[in-house]
């Protein structure tokens, strides 16, 4: 049995369901792996993988791209969601917000990464507003701050915080990024270091195939998958896990139009990378905007799939 | 007249001082003698209102016939250790009692400075205590006590660190000062010669009683030879006592 560690991008949620399913249904064990899912911590999963503190990492799309642009030696192996799950949310009580242009001059609860500014700026500008707003960096506290009205808007994951807000009856509205000039993209990458890929391809293959089997099973058995997830972690509200699984299946996030799962498609991958580079948020050591590297095909690798 | 009646001091049940009664007239020097460890310092501390935590006292204190409680503002006290503050200069240390009494720094300084020369401390006004010899420190503490001009003065072995000549000089300064400004002095000393030379009455603390001897000779007539019999008498009283 080979020990393998996986770092998560956020506290355990339905995005990770395939990994938990593969672990708790013994798929990893069958593949000769002992997988440890590291608890979510203050250290980003991209950094943990890049530094070798974890073998695999579940990364949000933006964390992956930022790390790549920063020079991290990462390769994406998997994309959980076939479309962008992120949205901009605001309180409906805030009647002055009707459209992204109305966000101008308001307060945003952020997560402390450069691309958020590009995203929000693009949406406001695309909608004809002045791209000026105030950012309060709150991280995981963002959603409580929005709920209490301390800030005007933030970004959420539709299949998690979005479902949660609905269950709690929070009156919240949202704008989809892709409706306001931001390209659609995958979300939720599983990545590893290029070095691991080179030196231990058989481990990568074994891990990813079991993971894929886990997501496949979860897509087919959302109710049971939710129960499995509930056993694996502390969840304040069990109904959120069930509702979120249901939303993922209903929304067709996991399987693409042709029924494929975990696929990385060149156009969506490049589209978002291009957006990041063009918006100038990525800087090099001397503070210059990064130049488009051209070919991105080396940034992801799905050769482990047969 | 300062009067102690039936003072008993105990430490953890053991009594250090037993039913002591003592009177300190408002004029002249009352010397308090006794073997080392017999409780002289403890009596003075009680009078000054600063008996240490471990000790318990029972007794009555009367000032001019009226009961009162220590600490009396009418008292100035010189402890057996000099207790000079290391962060104050000698002049500031000497002025401490006056400052506490409410004088301004300048007034206190003006009152203190003239005494430095007669005390042999000229030049040390701005020095800190650690730069002074033991005898100099003791004189600074004596200065601090005497300048306070209180009605009563409690002195705990004020000259123990002084050489014979400096001691004589300080003794005669004290007598002159008292002649000019009469006050009541309670002087603890272990030096029989000093007691004989200075005191108007001598109290010897013995285990079970207090012996009081009046000394009526004028100070000028107290030569070493003239006082020899008194000294011998005191010595025999002290010899009677054995330390516990």
């Amino acid at each position: 049995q080979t020990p393998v560690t996986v770092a998560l991008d956020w506290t355990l949620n339905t995005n990770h369901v395939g990994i938990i399913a593969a672990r708790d249904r013994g798929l990893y064990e069958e593949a000769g792996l002992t997988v440890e899912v590291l608890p979510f911590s203050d250290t980003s999963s991209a950094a943990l993988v890049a530094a070798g503190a974890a073998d695999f990492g579940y990364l949000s799309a933006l964390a992956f791209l930022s790390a790549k642009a920063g020079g991290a030696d990462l390769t994406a192996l998997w994309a959980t969601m076939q479309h962008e799950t992120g949205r901009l949310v605001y309180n409906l009580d805030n009647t002055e917000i009707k459209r992204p242009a109305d966000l101008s001059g308001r307060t945003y609860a952020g997560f402390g990464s450069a691309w958020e500014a590009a995203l929000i700026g693009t949406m406001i500008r695309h909608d004809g507003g002045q791209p000026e707003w105030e950012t309060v960096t709150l991280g995981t506290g963002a959603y409580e701050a929005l709920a209490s009205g301390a800030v005007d808007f933030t970004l959420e994951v539709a299949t998690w915080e979005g479902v949660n807000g609905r269950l709690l009856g929070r009156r919240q509205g949202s704008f989809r990024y892709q409706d306001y000039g931001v390209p659609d993209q995958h979300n939720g990458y599983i990545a590893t270091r290029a070095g691991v890929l080179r030196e231990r391809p058989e481990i990568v293959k074994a891990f990813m195939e079991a993971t894929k089997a886990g997501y496949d099973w979860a897509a087919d058995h959302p109710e049971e998958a939710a129960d499995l997830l509930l056993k694996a972690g502390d969840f304040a509200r069990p109904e959120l896990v069930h509702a979120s699984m249901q939303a993922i299946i209903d929304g067709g996030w996991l399987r693409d139009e042709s029924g494929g799962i975990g696929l990385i498609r060149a156009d969506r991958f490049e589209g978002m990378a291009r957006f990041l580079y063009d918006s100038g948020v990525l800087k090099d050591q001397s503070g210059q905007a990064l130049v488009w590297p051209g070919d991105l095909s080396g940034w992801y690798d799905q050769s482990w799939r047969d | 007249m300062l009067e102690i009646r039936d003072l008993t001091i105990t430490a953890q049940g053991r009594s250090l001082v037993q039913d002591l009664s003592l009177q300190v007239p408002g004029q002249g020097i009352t010397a308090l003698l006794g073997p080392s460890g017999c409780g002289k310092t403890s009596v003075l501390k009680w009078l000054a209102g600063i008996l240490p935590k471990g000790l318990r006292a029972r007794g009555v204190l009367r000032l001019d016939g009226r009961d009162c409680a220590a600490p009396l503002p009418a008292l100035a006290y010189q402890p057996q250790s000099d207790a000079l503050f290391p962060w104050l200069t000698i002049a500031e240390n000497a002025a401490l009692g006056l400052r506490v009494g409410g004088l301004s720094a300048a007034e206190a300084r003006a009152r203190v400075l003239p005494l430095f020369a007669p005390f042999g401390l000229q030049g040390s006004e701005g020095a800190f205590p650690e730069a002074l010899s033991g005898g100099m420190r003791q004189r600074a503490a004596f200065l601090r006590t005497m300048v306070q001009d209180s009605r009563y003065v409690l002195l705990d072995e004020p000259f123990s660190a002084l050489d014979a000549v400096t001691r004589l000089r300080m003794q005669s300064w004290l007598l002159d000062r008292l002649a000019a400004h009469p006050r009541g002095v309670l002087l603890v000393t272990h030096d029989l010669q000093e007691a004989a030379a200075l005191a108007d009455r001598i109290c010897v603390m013995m285990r079970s009683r207090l012996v009081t001897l009046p000394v009526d000779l004028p100070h000028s007539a107290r030569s070493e030879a003239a006082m020899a019999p008194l000294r011998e008498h005191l010595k025999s009283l002290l010899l009677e006592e054995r330390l516990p």
Partner: protein
Amino acid sequence: MSRMLSPLALFLLLFAVWEGYCRLSGVSELVLPGPLAVLHALYIHRDAIGVHALATVLVALPGFALSVSFAVLTSMLLHACPRAERAVLPVFVASQTIPLVALAPLMILWFGFGLLPKILLVILVTFLPVLLSLLSGYRQTPAAFTELLQSMGAGGFEIFRRATWPSARPAFFAGLRISATYAIVATIFAEYAGARQGIGIWILSAKNSFRADLVLAGVVVSALLTLTLLAVLRGIEVLTRPGRGGRGHA
């Protein structure tokens, strides 16, 4: 001047070792950039980082000043009333055992993103070392000193002012030094939990952009701010020192 040379030399040596390690081991810049890279990043971003540094200072200084005043006042009250000390001190100590990582986000929730929660956090972190040092300093006052003043008819405050406080002076500055060391760091911490600007925000976004060099540039600025504060305190201590009274005395 020459008193500063040896620590400077040691610092340079440490930096040289660090730079050498980075070059020779070939460790990734993402994980551990060398000091030269950090200084370079600091230089390039000096304007942006300066704005953040200012924001941090404007929280840390009032917080620290309030904390020290509060600690001095409290110490005097507790000294005057030992019974209160016995009741209150455990509560203060317990307040220090609350993990900030848990408290900071809650404070932001309760009090918003303004100055208040951050200043409260700075006070929470820096208050106790000063208080404890003062109380222990007060207790070191030689009994002979307080007794002497008592015999002079000094009141409680007069005794405090003339004997207890000067005796506690070295302990007070020792406590100040400990607290000052934490003042900036605590502010950065508070910013981490929610703020508009500040070195904490700088470090957080640098971290999220995988720029260890910018993270460490923030760390360097934080260290410099703290060392400046310590130097100022040292200056105050030396300037207000009465003679050579710092020594113990038997």
